[in-house]
Each structure stands twice: as structure tokens, then as C-alpha cells.
């Protein structure tokens, strides 16, 4: 195959291109041609297609997510808001905390262990890229019916993957959720949250500026992992009839990630980094275009210098590869040597792959020939924005009216009936002890865990001298949200808020993972619109801004969507973790009070 250079693209304007296979719509492809004034090269097409996918561009959700900013309550605590890898919150004493919850639903259904493991790996790198040391993880999970054979395939693998990766990284698992409901049968939800801590002055942003500064790619070698995964996996309904669309699965290497964490924290400590970005879903396409568009100049990359695991990869594939455990840093020339030495110390491969230019374009070369010449913003931020049609579902009224009547759901009248009800509740998978799962997670590592399972919220000490701590809880109820998306989302927030408060911390900020069905279905889109409106209003009312989050759409099997499932995480601060309040009775003779009505 000949190389599709920029020159070649200019000379062969009518060459057929696989834009549809890459998940682009016809008008999107036309827009790319418009932007470039010519047809895109293969490499450019690869970049636009992954970056304009639903997963990366939020094209269906953007118009609704805007409310989180517009309705954001006045908060002094917010240091970095929505838009960066993760939001950053001031927790006092010079400390800042960053946290975010993300989904890895589809990959976890295909390959439960690796899908869940790389979900943890991805969110941890997001937190690390802000300049923070990751200090804890949580895992809100949803499965199909507990007794369904496929749950038996999916659940143990997902739990082992979360544990296998998180335990090996040395991050305590301080909480999560496990909910069983048949609606998640063909589409389990694997959401993962990470919390990181830093000093205010350590905040780093994904930004490339200063002509002549070097672009360094470090971490794992690039392989053929998950190529096309972003556009195909996250944007299309998972469909058994098209096995060819199944991309190669990403395999995680938690040991490599642990080295990446320590190495990155050390280069931060020595102030060797001007800008940094983790390589997530869209790999190098995302890292280079986002770094370049947030900076002041352009960027030039020599793609053939990228260390490969598979020497046969084409430029397109290298740009789209989702190989895990990689980061991209912008470093001043005179600091490169020290940067590389620290990487060597940690056995981390690091390569200068390009530099910041004083131009305005992202230019990528392959053995001297130019294969990409684009305005980086158009790739990273100017993706399509859809006003998807939405309408209250025709069945919504009937669903709400379908309230349990005294005949259909009689209240227990006798002691015996009450006992039976209690036993039924206690024996249901959703109420049963989660220790089979939580016992597989290390909750003690790092030695700062103040509260973890079975507490209402997870709490960690972040300063050993002053006992400053933070606490996080996640909640979400798909059944409530289906009944009434606006109120359901608010209830999720209220519950997480209460769980944080109950542990003794003051709620400060919110992150959320919005798991919904197909945005092309107006019913689902209405659920989404209502849920975001509800959450934004509730955040405003409670004074806790949304600092970031994630949207996962196309969670459905065939035509049937999952229950709308916004998972809401609340972060709180506690000045002295000695004042935490654990659940359970501490001592004989204590009184029991019921608050609220």
C-alpha cells in the first residue's frame, strides 16, 4: 500500500475513502473536506474519525452538558473546571483534590477482565495527568440478573479485572456499588472512579506551548490494541451479527502503569513538565491534537519515531491505537535529558517524537513525508454538535401511573408476613453482602484509608500531620430514573451527598457518569435531557458544582436500552479525620435518632 501523503491527497481528490466504516456520517466527512480544503489523508481521516466519535466529542450530549457550567453554583473551591482531564477542587491547607468517574461498559462486556482492568487504568491516568498522585479508586457496577448464566461469565471477570489492576497499582478501593437488574443483561455497566491529591502549585494542564519545546511519548510501546475501538466500540450499538467490527481488545499492564505513575510524579516533582496528557480512548490522535490546540503554537510529530510493539503498523493505525499505559509530555529542550534519565530510572521507555512549532498547525510526518496537516482545534474541539430530537416517551405516563396498589403489593399485616418480607429483602442479591466482591480489593494499601467498605462513603487521610481528609460516595438508581429522569438524577445526587455527610465530611463537588441508551432514540434522548437538567438544578440547589464526568451512550441490546443510569459521585472534605462517623453501634447505651421525615 502506498503512503497517503498530504501531497497525494491533493492530487487525488476523488479517491474513495472509508469514512462510513470509520463511523463518520456523510455530512461529517464533507465538513472535514471543507475544513481542509481538500480530501483528508488516511491518517487525517483516522484522527477526525476517532476524535469526532460520540465517545470523544460528546456530540449528542454537549448541548445538555452545558448546563453544568451555566448553572454551576458559586464555589470558591473550584480550581479547574469542566473541560480538562478532570476537575480540581481546593480542599484547604494548600491541597487540591481531583476526582472523576468514567465508564468502560462495552469493552467489559466483550472481555470482562481486560475491559474492567483497562477501565481502572484509564481513569487513573486521567487523574495523574492533572499533576496529582492517585490515592484511591471506586467502582460503581451494574449487572444483569444475578442468576443469569451470562452474569456468571461477566461478573467474576469484571471484579477480578478491577482488583487485578487496582491492587497491583497499589490504590485502595474505598467503595462502589453493585446492582443487579435484568435491564443490564446484555450491557453491564462498569464505571470507575479515581481520586488524586496534589498541592495547588502542582496542577498540570494538557497544553503545549513554546516553540522548540519537545513532545515526549513515554510508557508502553504502541501496538494494534483496540484500533477503531473508539469509533466503533463506543459509538455503535454492540451487535453480534457484525463480528468483523469487533476490534482487538486492549490488554492492560498494571505493572507498567505503576511505573508510569511513579515516574510521572518524579518528573512533576522536578518541574520538568510544561504540559501533559494521558493517552486514552483516541490514543495519539487525542493527545497530540488536544495538547496542540490548548497551546499557543503548532506541533510537528515524527510518527516513525514512536516505539512500536508491532513493526507493521501503518501511520493510521499508530494514530488510532488505544495501547494502554502511555503518556505524552511537553518538555523544554534543556530538561529533556533529565526527563529521559528519570524514565530510565523507572524502566519506562521514553522517546522525543516531535516538538512545538511557532506555526498554527498540527503536522505529522512519516519517514519524512507529511501525512497530516490540520488545524488542531478542528480535530480536538470543533467536532459536530447535534441537537438530537427528544420527546417524552409515549409510555412514560403509563409507567408512572402503574403504581403498586394495595392488592398487588399488600403491606405485611402480621408478624409472620413481616418476617417473610424481611427475609425476602435480606436475601435479594441487591441487598446481600457485597463482601465476595469487596474482599477481592485491597482497601488498606497506602495506609491512609479511614473509611471503606462497608461504610456509607470512602474516606482517606491526605495529610498525616493535620489529619485533613477527603471522602467520596457514588450512587445512582436506574429504576427511579426511568420512572422520572429529572427527579431520579437528583435522588442519586442527594444520596451520594448524604453518604458523604453521614461519614462526617462536608460535600464540596460532584462528578458523574451518565449511562444511557442510544441518543438516536428520542425517548432515550429525553431521559438524558431530563436527567442532566435535574442534576444541574440539584447541584445548583446544594451548592456543589459538577467538576467533570463522562457520558456513555448506546448502552443497549438491540432496540432495548438500559434503564437511564446516571451515577453521581460526591466529594467531601473533613478537617480532621478523627471526627469521622462510622456506621454501626459504637457502644452500649448510645441512643438512636431518626432525622428527616
Amino acid at each position: 500500500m502506498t503512503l497517503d501523503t498530504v501531497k497525494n491527497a491533493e492530487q487525488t481528490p476523488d479517491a474513495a475513502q472509508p469514512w462510513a466504516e470509520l463511523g463518520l456520517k456523510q455530512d461529517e466527512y464533507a465538513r472535514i473536506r471543507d475544513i481542509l480544503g481538500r480530501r483528508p489523508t488516511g491518517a487525517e481521516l483516522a484522527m477526525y474519525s476517532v476524535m469526532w466519535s460520540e465517545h470523544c466529542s460528546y456530540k449528542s450530549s454537549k448541548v445538555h452538558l452545558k448546563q453544568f457550567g451555566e448553572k454551576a453554583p458559586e464555589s470558591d473551591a473550584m480550581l479547574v473546571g469542566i473541560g480538562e482531564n478532570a476537575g480540581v477542587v481546593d480542599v484547604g491547607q494548600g491541597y487540591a483534590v481531583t476526582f472523576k468517574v468514567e465508564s468502560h461498559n462495552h469493552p467489559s462486556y466483550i472481555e470482562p477482565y481486560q475491559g474492567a482492568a483497562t477501565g481502572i487504568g484509564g481513569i487513573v491516568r486521567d487523574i495523574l495527568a492533572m499533576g496529582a498522585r492517585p490515592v484511591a479508586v471506586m467502582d460503581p457496577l451494574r449487572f444483569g440478573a444475578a442468576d443469569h448464566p451470562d452474569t456468571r461469565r461477566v461478573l467474576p471477570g469484571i471484579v477480578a479485572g478491577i482488583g487485578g489492576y487496582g491492587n497491583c497499582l497499589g490504590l485502595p478501593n474505598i467503595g462502589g456499588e453493585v446492582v443487579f437488574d435484568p435491564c443490564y443483561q446484555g450491557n453491564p455497566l462498569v464505571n470507575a472512579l479515581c481520586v488524586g491529591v496534589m498541592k495547588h502549585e502542582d496542577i498540570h494542564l494538557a497544553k503545549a506551548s513554546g516553540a522548540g519545546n519537545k513532545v515526549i511519548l513515554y510508557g508502553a510501546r504502541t501496538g494494534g490494541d483496540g484500533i477503531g475501538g473508539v469509533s466503533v466500540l463506543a459509538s455503535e450499538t454492540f451487535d453480534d451479527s457484525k463480528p468483523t467490527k469487533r476490534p482487538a481488545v486492549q490488554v492492560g499492564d498494571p505493572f507498567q502503569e505503576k511505573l508510569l505513575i511513579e515516574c510521572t510524579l518524579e518528573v512533576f516533582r522536578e518541574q520538568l513538565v510544561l504540559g501533559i496528557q494521558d493517552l486514552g480512548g483516541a490514543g495519539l490522535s487525542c493527545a497530540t491534537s488536544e495538547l496542540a490546540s490548548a497551546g499557543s503554537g503548532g506541533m510537528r510529530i515524527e510518527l516513525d519515531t514512536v516505539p512500536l510493539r508491532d513493526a507493521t503498523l501503518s501511520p493510521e493505525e499508530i494514530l488510532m491505537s488505544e495501547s494502554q499505559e502511555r503518556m505524552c509530555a511537553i518538555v523544554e529542550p534543556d530538561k529533556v535529558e533529565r526527563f529521559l534519565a528519570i524514565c530510565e530510572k523507572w524502566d519506562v521507555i521514553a522517546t522525543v517524537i516531535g516538538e512545538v512549532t511557532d506555526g498554527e498547525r498540527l503536522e505529522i510526518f512519516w519517514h519524512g513525508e507529511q501525512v497530516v496537516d490540520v488545524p488542531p482545534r478542528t480535530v480536538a474541539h470543533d467536532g459536530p454538535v447535534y441537537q438530537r430530537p427528544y420527546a417524552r416517551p409515549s409510555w412514560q405516563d403509563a409507567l408512572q401511573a402503574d403504581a403498586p396498589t394495595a392488592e398487588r403489593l399488600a403491606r405485611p399485616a402480621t408478624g409472620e408476613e413481616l418476617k417473610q418480607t424481611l427475609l425476602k429483602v435480606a436475601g435479594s442479591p441487591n441487598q446481600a453482602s457485597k463482601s465476595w466482591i469487596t474482599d477481592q480489593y485491597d482497601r488498606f494499601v497506602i495506609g491512609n484509608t479511614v473509611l471503606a467498605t462497608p461504610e456509607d462513603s470512602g474516606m482517606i487521610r491526605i495529610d498525616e500531620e493535620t489529619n485533613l481528609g477527603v471522602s467520596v460516595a457514588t450512587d445512582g438508581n436506574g429504576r427511579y430514573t426511568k420512572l422520572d429522569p429529572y427527579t431520579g438524577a437528583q435522588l442519586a445526587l442527594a444520596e451520594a451527598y448524604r453518604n458523604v455527610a453521614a461519614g462526617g465530611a462536608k460535600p464540596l463537588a460532584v462528578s458523574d457518569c451518565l449511562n444511557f441508551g442510544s441518543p438516536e432514540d428520542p425517548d432515550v434522548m429525553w431521559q438524558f435531557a431530563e436527567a442532566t437538567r435535574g442534576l444541574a438544578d440539584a447541584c445548583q440547589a446544594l451548592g456543589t458544582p459538577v467538576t467533570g464526568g463522562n457520558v456513555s451512550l448506546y448502552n443497549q441490546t438491540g432496540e432495548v436500552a438500559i434503564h437511564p443510569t446516571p451515577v453521581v459521585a460526591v466529594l467531601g472534605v473533613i478537617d480532621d479525620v478523627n471526627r469521622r462517623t462510622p456506621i454501626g453501634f459504637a457502644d452500649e447505651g448510645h441512643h438512636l435518632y431518626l432525622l428527616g421525615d
Partner: protein
Amino acid sequence: MTTRVGVVTFPGSLDDRDAQRAIRLAGAEPVALWHRDKDLHQVDAVVLPGGFSYGDYLRAGAISRFSPVMESLIEQAKLGMPVLGICNGFQVLTESHLLPGAMLRNNHLHFICRDQKLRVENAATAWTSDYQAGQEISIPLKNMDGRYTADRRTIDELESEGRVVFRYLASEEGGLCNPNGSINDIAGITNAAGNVVGLMPHPEHAVEPLVGTGKTDGLPFFTSVLKQLVNV
């Protein structure tokens, strides 16, 4: 002069900073040792911490065992320097044959994390003199490959010489006594001289009432070695 206790960091060590904290709380000076550095920096004792050194790839502890720092450590351990291997550190000690036997995958094939009750069987080692023989303690356990095994002769030797230092016990709430299928419920052992001790559970996670399980049953490990060093 303060007592210096080294903590080795291998690539993938996780509980190294925790071990340093425990040493500090016990009143000694923690000294960070690096796997590539042969120099033990005049430490008086060494802790090999928990974690997943080299990802536990191949076998837990198998790759770390060949680190430069281990060459010096093996030499010094044979000369009597107190060495404590916790979890992954224990695995490194068996892989380097400073302690007999080997660690296998837990018999239930899962990672297990829980508060684990133990009986101190031998309070005469460098790391257990602040306990009473027969004392019951509770410290966190968290591992994937914690099943201790050795051939019959080795086990008989360990038992007859009193070199089984810790044994797993059932907790008050009941539950399985033996968390992983370890032979004779063995949780930790020592060498013949009593200076090298390895165990799977984590004393360094039980040194402060505020965090972890809220117990401090692990602190005597570190005060024991301190006393022993001050006395010599």
C-alpha cells in the same frame, strides 16, 4: 545514634512508604533503599515491603530476587542482619532461598483482603520479641499468592525447631481459619538464626488506630527489632 531500618523499593513495590511510616512510628529512622543500588547505606535492618514487584509476573518475587540490592542483602542476612519480608517481601525471601519453601496461588484462586487473626507462635525472633508466645493478634491480609508450601521434611523441620512464627486463626465472627490453603495454617516463618522473618499479612498496615482496621497489633514488629538492635 538512631537505628536505621532500610526499606527496599523494587519496581512495583506498593507498601514501601507504609513500612517507612511504621518504622518511624516505632521510633527508628526509615531509609529508602533502591533495588538497583547494591549499597545498603549502613542500615541496621531491612524490610522487604509488600506489593507486586515486577507485577508478580512469572512468579511473585521471582524477578526482584535477582536485583543488585538483593546480593548485598543476602550476604548481610547470612551474617545476622534482621530482615523482615512482608507479603511480596516474604515471596522474595523464599525465591532467594533465605527462607525455605515457596508461595503458591491461594487455593480459592482469588485475591483476598481481610482483617486476619494470627497466633504468635515464636516470640524469640528479631521481629517478634515484643509479643508473647501464644499471643493472638489481628492484622490485614491482602494477597493473591499466599499459600505457603514446602516438602514434608522442611515442614517437619520448621515445626520441630519452632520456626513457624505465625499461624492463621479463625476470627470471632467465624469464617475460614485458613485464608489460602497454607500448609499447617502457616502465615509466617523464620530462618534457623531467627533474624530473617517472612509473613503474608501486613503488620505495617496495623500501626495507627485511625486508619486501616483501626488496630495497632502490628507495631510490635518494629519495636521488637529496635530493641534487639539497641541491645546489641
